[in-house]
């Protein structure tokens, strides 16, 4: 057999070997390692985005403050939004998709392990490309939705917007590649007996998100490509002087942007739908309804985008239609909230840290959802549009919703990922600091917004009555910062000295709790056969006459399986090389064309090598260690 490597004279060693060291992480195709990479990278950007937020809050803590210049302030809010959405919430969600989906459906890996690695490296390189703009004379400064014609080369001189476009293009490829992978994995790799209506709700939500991703990202990809062509190659798509309609960008952006909102919140909804049943010792109330509410949100999410545009003058008919659909989408969301509450109702609840974060999620998301319904009323939105009321709303759903849900997931699955439990006391301290800090930061923004304080202003003059709540809000940021310090402390301590978790520390319900923590490379020594929803729970308990769970008498220990015969996919150089090549092509457009050419050659080499190497090297004999 001739491989591309041999054709090219064996540029690279035959196949990466070794299970430890930096190189093993760079060439890994193990979904668990990739999940960890996503999680760690996402958390680092969470700190970075938080520092950006802190600087903005310091600037706004008093009237006429001069901590950052207006130019820097514009860069800060643009990069804060872009970072938190694309580099924090999405990858932290992806961390759980990666680590948990194969475990939850009883699979040994995702359908395309190398594509999965490629997704991660595209994410990392795209994130770096976006942030390099800070060093090259100005980050993007046009807001995260980058309205035209502000972004044209007439009004946005410098390369900030180009970096924003190219960074998002690279990140978009990453997200789409991951979404294709998860759709195929979930549809095609379920354990025997696990029908679609037996998969955990988190897996369902991931499937819905993946469909939203592959359908929404092409829209933004086209929109930013057209913008890039305008800026670099002289087309006139968004040139109002040539007759372009400036609203077209807004339609394109929000046709992507609103599904994106559900891409950000559905992972958290999936996570709490897993956690609430575990700590209530009851199955999820109304599984089918929760699943179809998620599907309905995914579908209706496509019909509400113009509620971001109520004030641009689309006319009463369009505004009424979008107002109505927006109110309707609150119905499936409300259904979920009632189902979560009903899940806890009558259960034997344990108030562990993941449970506290889940309940916090429900409360905060209800507040954010209600202010969302207020925005849905178009006349009311006219009053609130572009004020801090909107800032309060979006943080209640994205921070109080998504981030709370993600932290619930971190505490819940940490023992599965690392084999050790996080400290519960520190966890609860973190939760309360986080909860209080969050509300102190963002609740006052409701008052500021209704009092007329516009968003995206770098300062305000004295005597407008905005000083007090702005100070309160800034104090809240420090409480959040303190809670994150407690979290990092918790992580550092327990990684070494934490209590050993064992397979199933929470008395869990889904398949990931049936295998060791951390899971072996091949996950399941023997692929399980599934007969029930909550497969692991059904293996442990049967239903007693009063409806309470009765422990089953454990049968004979499972027969030993010779795991040496399990063939796992072999690590590969090409995912990271292809990602580097494609990012260099993008990077060349903001530096020198030679960079693009080098990137193109690297990408071509990687594509052919990737296609010609077998996914599982027949010559590889590896011992299966922990990942």
């Amino acid at each position, binding site marked *: *057999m*001739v491989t591309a490597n041999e054709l090219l004279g064996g540029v690279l060693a035959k196949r990466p070997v070794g299970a430890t060291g930096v190189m093993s992480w760079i060439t890994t195709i193990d979904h668990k390692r990739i999940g960890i990479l996503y999680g760690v990278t996402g958390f680092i950007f969470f700190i970075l985005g938080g520092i950006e937020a802190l600087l903005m809050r310091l600037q706004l803590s008093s009237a006429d403050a001069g901590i950052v210049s207006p130019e820097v302030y514009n860069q800060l809010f643009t990069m804060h939004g872009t970072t938190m959405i694309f580099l924090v919430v999405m990858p932290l969600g992806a961390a759980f998709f990666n680590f948990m989906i194969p475990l939850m459906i009883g699979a040994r890996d995702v*359908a*395309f392990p190398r594509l999965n690695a490629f997704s991660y490296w595209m994410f990392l390189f795209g994130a770096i490309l976006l942030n390099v703009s800070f060093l090259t004379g100005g980050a993007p400064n046009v807001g995260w939705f980058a309205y035209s014609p502000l972004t044209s080369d007439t009004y946005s001189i410098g390369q900030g917007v180009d970096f924003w476009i190219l960074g998002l293009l690279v990140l978009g490829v990453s997200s*789409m590649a991951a979404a*294709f*992978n998860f*759709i*195929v994995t979930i*549809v*095609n*790799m*379920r354990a025997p007996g*696990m029908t679609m209506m037996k998969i955990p709700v988190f897996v369902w939500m991931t499937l819905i998100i993946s469909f939203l991703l*592959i*359908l*929404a*990202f*092409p*829209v933004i*990809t*086209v*929109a930013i490509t*057209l913008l890039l*062509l305008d800026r670099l*190659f*002289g*087309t*006139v*798509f968004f040139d109002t002087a*040539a*007759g*372009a*309609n400036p609203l*077209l960008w807004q339609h*394109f952006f929000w046709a992507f942007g609103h599904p994106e909102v559900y891409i950000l919140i559905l992972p958290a909804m999936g996570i709490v739908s897993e956690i609430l049943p575990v700590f209530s010792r009851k199955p999820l109330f109304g599984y089918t309804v929760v699943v179809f509410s998620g599907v309905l949100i995914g579908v209706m999410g496509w019909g509400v985008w113009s509620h971001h545009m109520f004030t641009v003058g689309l006319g009463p008919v369009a505004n009424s239609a979008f107002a109505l659909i927006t109110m309707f989408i609150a119905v499936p969301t409300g259904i979920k909230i009632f189902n979560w509450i009903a899940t806890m109702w009558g259960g034997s609840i344990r108030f562990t840290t993941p449970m506290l974060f889940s309940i916090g999620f429900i409360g905060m998301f209800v507040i954010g959802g209600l202010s969302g319904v207020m925005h849905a009323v178009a006349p009311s939105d006219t009053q609130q549009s572009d004020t801090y009321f909107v800032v309060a709303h979006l943080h209640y759903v994205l921070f109080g919703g998504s981030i709370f849900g993600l932290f619930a997931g971190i505490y819940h699955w940490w023992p599965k990922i690392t084999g050790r439990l996080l400290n519960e006391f520190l966890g609860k301290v973190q939760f309360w600091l986080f909860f209080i800090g969050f509300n102190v930061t963002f609740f006052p923004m409701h008052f500021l917004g209704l009092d007329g304080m516009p968003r995206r202003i770098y300062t305000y003059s004295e005597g407008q009555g905005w000083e007090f709540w702005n100070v309160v809000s800034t104090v809240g940021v420090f409480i959040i910062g303190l809670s994150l310090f407690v979290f990092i402390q918790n992580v550092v301590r327990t990684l070494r000295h934490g209590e050993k978790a064992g397979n199933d520390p929470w008395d869990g319900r889904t398949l990931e709790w049936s295998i060791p923590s951390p899971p072996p490379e091949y996950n399941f020594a023997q692929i399980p056969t599934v007969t029930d929803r909550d497969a692991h729970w059904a293996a442990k308990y049967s239903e007693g006459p009063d409806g309470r769970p009765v422990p089953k008498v454990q049968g004979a220990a499972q027969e030993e399986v010779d795991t040496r015969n399990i063939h796992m996919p072999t690590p590969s150089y090409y995912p990271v090389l292809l990602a580097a090549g494609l990012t260099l092509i993008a990077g060349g457009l903001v530096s020198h064309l030679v960079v693009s050419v080098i990137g193109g050659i690297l990408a071509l080499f990687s594509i*052919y090598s990737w296609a*010609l190497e*077998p*996914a*599982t090297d027949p010559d590889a004999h590896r011992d299966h260690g922990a990942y």
Partner: protein
Amino acid sequence: MAVTTHEPEHPTSTGLSHRKLLMWTFLGSECLFFGTLIANHMINRNQAELLNGVSPACVLDIPITSASTFVLLMSSVAMVLAVTASERGDMKQLRIWLFMTAVLGATFLGFQVYEFSAFVDEGLTIGTNLYGSTFFILTGFHGVHVTVGVIWILSMLAASYRRSDLVIGNPLNVDITGLYWHFVDVVWIVIFTVVYLVGAIGLNCTEVV
């Protein structure tokens, strides 16, 4: 397909192979990609006449584009024959039809190069007006897809000489190439209808310029 495959695939939940499912989801995503570009063209093309430059009616040459459309559709026929040849394990026929598909695809690209240069000669470039921008970018992105397809098919042809296991032992590889190729053809039928046939209705070259 009762042919032994090089890498036996594990049984899947749906019975479809992972890679075929991947290609279908990818094509679903591509629908939105081209859908956005086509919408962009339809929204913007009417603005063009108000402004400086060239009317679509003066530059569109429907007979020539009909010929190139016919060539592209025939390439889909050739692709079907290549797929069936690989399923039969008929290497000779497979090579012939892969080659024919690539030649027909390249011929279509030749038409496009001719068309683009003719438009530029008439004074319509990507920066002339909104019609120029949307026309060149929409058909250009389609052309990029055809180019990728031609390179892919030629790679399969080359592989049939060096790594015959990739094309004969594993008909799925040719099958997936075929899915992509047919999709690119179907998109062209939409573009041809919307941009050329519908796009020229009611326009008169003498009205503008």
